[in-house]
């Protein structure tokens, strides 16, 4: 299938690949998707005391569009407040990358990933979570 130039660019030169320390209280981690479905995205954000995302990192198992969606997202969320980042819609990602209809789910997954990362960060900071919620590898969509 033919990919857009932007997808190819992000795929060939992915931005912000890597991992942040998930135990760091300033770091929120979102992992969404499933290997059986052919894509898993891990998105991490480091949030400063003012509630602004200072840094973002990703790792993605998936097709080129999934990799590009998560790479683009890390660029977009940097410097944004949690509210602003949480308001990013999959349609914006799909439009920016010119994703074809069969690849829209990649952008949905990216939106899910940032929401999950924000939720994880908030859980860590707002209150100590109850013990039975302490499942670091539990993933949320």
């Amino acid at each position, binding site marked *: *299938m033919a990919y857009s130039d932007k997808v190819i660019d992000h795929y060939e030169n992915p931005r912000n690949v890597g991992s942040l320390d998930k135990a760091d209280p300033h770091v929120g981690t979102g992992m969404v998707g499933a*290997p059986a479905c052919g894509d898993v995205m891990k998105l991490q954000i480091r949030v400063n005391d003012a509630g602004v995302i200072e840094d973002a990192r990703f790792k993605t198992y998936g097709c080129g569009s999934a990799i590009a969606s998560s790479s683009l997202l890390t660029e977009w969320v940097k410097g944004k407040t949690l509210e602003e980042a949480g308001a990013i819609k999959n349609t914006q990602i799909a439009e920016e990358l010119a994703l074809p209809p069969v690849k829209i789910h990649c952008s949905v997954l990216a939106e899910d990933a940032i929401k999950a990362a924000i939720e994880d960060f908030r859980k860590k900071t707002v209150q100590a979570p109850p013990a039975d919620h302490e499942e670091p590898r539990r993933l949320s969509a």
Partner: protein
Amino acid sequence: MSSRRPIYLDYAATTPVDERVAEAMFRFMTFGGAFGNPASRSHSFGWEAEKAVEEAREQVAALVGADPREIVWTSGATEADNLAIKGAAHFYQKKGRHIVTVKTEHKAVLDTCRQLEREGFEVTYLDPEPSGLLDLNKLEAALRNDTVLVSVMQVNNEIGVIQDIEAIGNLTRSRGILFHVDAAQSTGKVHLDLSKLPVDLMSFSAHKTYGPKGVGALYVSRKPRVRLEAQMHGGGHERGMRSGTLAPHQIIGMGEAFRIAREEMGAENERLRMLRDRLWEGLSTMDEVYLNGDLERRVAGNLNASFNFVEGESLIMALKDIAVSSGSACTSASLEPSYVLRALGRDDELAHSSIRFSVGRYTTVEEIDHTIALVTSAVEKLRELSPLWEMHQEGVDLKSVEWVAH
């Protein structure tokens, strides 16, 4: 680099037409050539075309050990599969309406069986063993008194494994059941002698064996005699089994391609096996690389491997200088990985991570070595990007993770 054509390693999808074949075909198209309709009985243009068509029929028959009168021209293996399965099912339906096939068959067989189910036939779809091969005991257990047809491919198009069609045929023949074999991937790769094999119907394609696309054939056994209900009606060509003006240039191309295959397959398969083994040797030095399908009972040119923790479509994207195909069907809306690999019991992850390499007549050692280098660096790059690889490195058992499927 990008101006060069990619390395072609998708010979199981199609092969280029051999130059000798193209040359032969060209003599049957233009005014200066033998352009006549082989069905024209009243002038030499027709006789000339008919003679060439019959010689091509002999070449096709000779490669597979059949009588030329047992060869029916079709538009390809898909049409041959349709004619064999629907034709036999319709003709023999008074005897019974049960058909047995395998889940790893080509869609041309599976979809034809689905159509027969809609018409009221019953179809049993058998699971192969994890090697891709069929357990004969399971086949025997699936046969019923009203079973009229068993359809099993000889060489699987994705994983290249070779079924024991002789044993299957002995079983079906002892039960008075017809046996159809899709042999689209067999010609030129596996020795076939239909004068001895207990096979009633066999489908062939030209374009998998360096012939042109758009032509194939169906072998219809004369001893024992097999009857078919025609699926294409018209001028009664091909003994009434397949009407439609024959395409001499296509047919001559198939004949010439099969003649070359007969003469050269011994040496060619030896060379392909060397190339395939070299490729596997180079790729399997990486961690977490798995071969799909039996390595021994397999055609020489096929290698199907899964690169764990790397998704197939992204790998193909990284391998833009190599033309291969992926078992991951992420491009379809269904997100279903290869049904063939799933039928072998492969995990979805490994099915999503699979690549089929098929080498052929024009593949060189240099191309194989270049492919090994490209695949290795692409897999390394994508694993650096893969959260699954990271978890694997940290010792996390991915099966213990509660994934949220979407």
